[in-house]
């Protein structure tokens, strides 16, 4: 179960709307206890995919290192990654799966016509063959 507090949730939606029709991406900071995650801050990061970004995103490792550092500085943990699917449902695509990491929750935001539509959270496996749905509360 992952719970996103109102402030980071608003920041994530604003970020997704702002970069629409491109995909946005960023990280979620918070705490995780016995499988219950609570996100208290969202950190928008740059989509560094080189090419059309309407249906692809890529996070720079340097940005992840910096985000991890920022989390430590705030006494929080980096517990999830978010990205948007413009004009598309919030499913976990093959591209998402093949470039995922089982350490984190992956929140996907469906943005339709520039506006938030729905969202899902996913937990990919080690083999990158499957992602289980995770209860998402926002």
């Amino acid at each position, binding site marked *: 179960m992952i719970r996103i507090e109102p402030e980071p949730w608003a920041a994530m939606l604003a970020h997704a709307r702002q970069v629409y029709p491109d995909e946005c991406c960023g990280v979620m900071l918070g705490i995780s206890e016995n499988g219950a995650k609570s996100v208290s801050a969202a950190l928008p990061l740059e989509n560094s995919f080189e090419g059309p970004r309407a249906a*692809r995103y890529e996070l720079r490792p340097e940005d992840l290192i910096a985000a991890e550092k920022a989390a430590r500085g705030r006494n929080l943990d980096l517990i999830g990654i978010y990205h948007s*699917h413009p004009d598309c449902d919030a499913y976990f695509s093959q591209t998402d799966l093949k470039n995922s990491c089982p350490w984190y929750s992956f929140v996907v935001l469906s943005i339709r016509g520039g*506006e938030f539509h729905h969202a899902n959270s996913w937990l990919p496996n080690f083999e990158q063959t499957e992602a289980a749905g995770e209860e998402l509360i926002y």
Partner: protein
Amino acid sequence: MPKVLIPTPLRQFTGKQDTVSVPGGTVGEVLGALTARYPDLRKQIFTDEGKVRSFVNVYLNDEDIRYLGKDATAAQESDTISLVPSIAGGSTVTAPPETTADAAALSNDEILRYSRHLILPEVGIEGQRKLKAAKVLLVGAGGLGAPLGLYLAAAGIGRIGIVDFDVVDVTNLQRQVIHFSSDVGRKKLDSAAEKMLAINPRLSVVKYETALTSENALAILKDYDLVVDGTDNFPTRYLVNDACVLLGKPNVYGSIFRFEGQATIFAYRGGPCYRCLYPEPPPPGLVPSCAEGGVLGILPGTIGLIQATETVKLILGIGEPLVGRLLLYDALGMRFRELKLRKNPECPVCGEHPTITRLIDYHQFCGVPAPATPAQETQVNEGEIDVTEVKAKMDRGEDFVLLDVREPHEYKIAAISGSRLIPLGEVSKRLGELDPKADIVVHCKSGMRSAKACAILRQAGFERVRNMKGGILAWSDRVDRGVPKY
């Protein structure tokens, strides 16, 4: 010993340590020693074949070891090794499956948030889901838009569009409670959206930074279930009405003036529209705006909340909608009255034989000029005089009359020294007090009333009459900041 920084999710395998120092001369040796010390970590970083997992990048300080010597990269005592996941993705490649989430379902958080709604049997889960699925367009983020925006956001409307192109002015703060003192100078859209999202982060706010026009109205309105009219001028009011009739969307109407307000729902199926009530606009200038006529700051709160109530009732389909009834509110008498409104079968837009089947030029229809461009606003036309020129005349000691046609209580707030007060309503009766041959400069607050006074004077044979462009507001801005603006 080189240090390894442990990413958050892996700290459960290192006894919560975020940094581990392990011996080793190369990166490969360090990672080997690390996973030997913490066996559970091994699966996270290495495949069964002992290769680093594809989603793990290993960094030595700030360099990816793939571009150094890979596993054999030398690790010094002072080096820091980071395990960085490689993350990317995108919506492409496979066709999306059917929608997995029901957009209008309520999460547990929402159930708690809206509990006082949910325990009303008239609302309940079903009703709250209707509110969440609803799309409401607010035309204007001013006096009426302020309470509407705040309460509709709190009530759980799913999407609220706002059309506004204005910026927050300090004179708005007396009534437009969605804007704070610190917002002066900001776009009303940004200021309003920020407050609404602070109240309800689940809300989706769509901002339209434009005037509503005949060209864009249908495209903007078509995506919404109903429209709430919070405008302050007749051209836009007729435009909203006609667009709502043409699209078949209810128009939740409100208007305010000094201490009185009105509210009703127009263009509801079977009900009357604004044109059934007012087939023709009033003559330009007859009905003053809030800026000219003043308004009790609380009044738009009362009227806006009646509009918000009717909006929520329409979405929920409960109660008796304010259709076919014009609610009149008098704040001084503290009375509500109701007038019956009937649909006019001859109505040019919603009648049996409509003659208006598409949007028209509403500025022309209302006999008012289209909003001036910035260039036009500063241009001084025939019969007008710029404030700086008036000041220069004074400084040169020229003999002329500066005639102030505002009301006495306005004169008390601010006046230009040396001016003479004759309120607009008395000008035609008191012509005898003025010399028809004199050089006369007329001013009011912003230039509207003085333009009318100039017309009266010219008609009476006064020849040397000019209107001071921009009124005492422009005087305060550009000549004497010591004169307060109001």
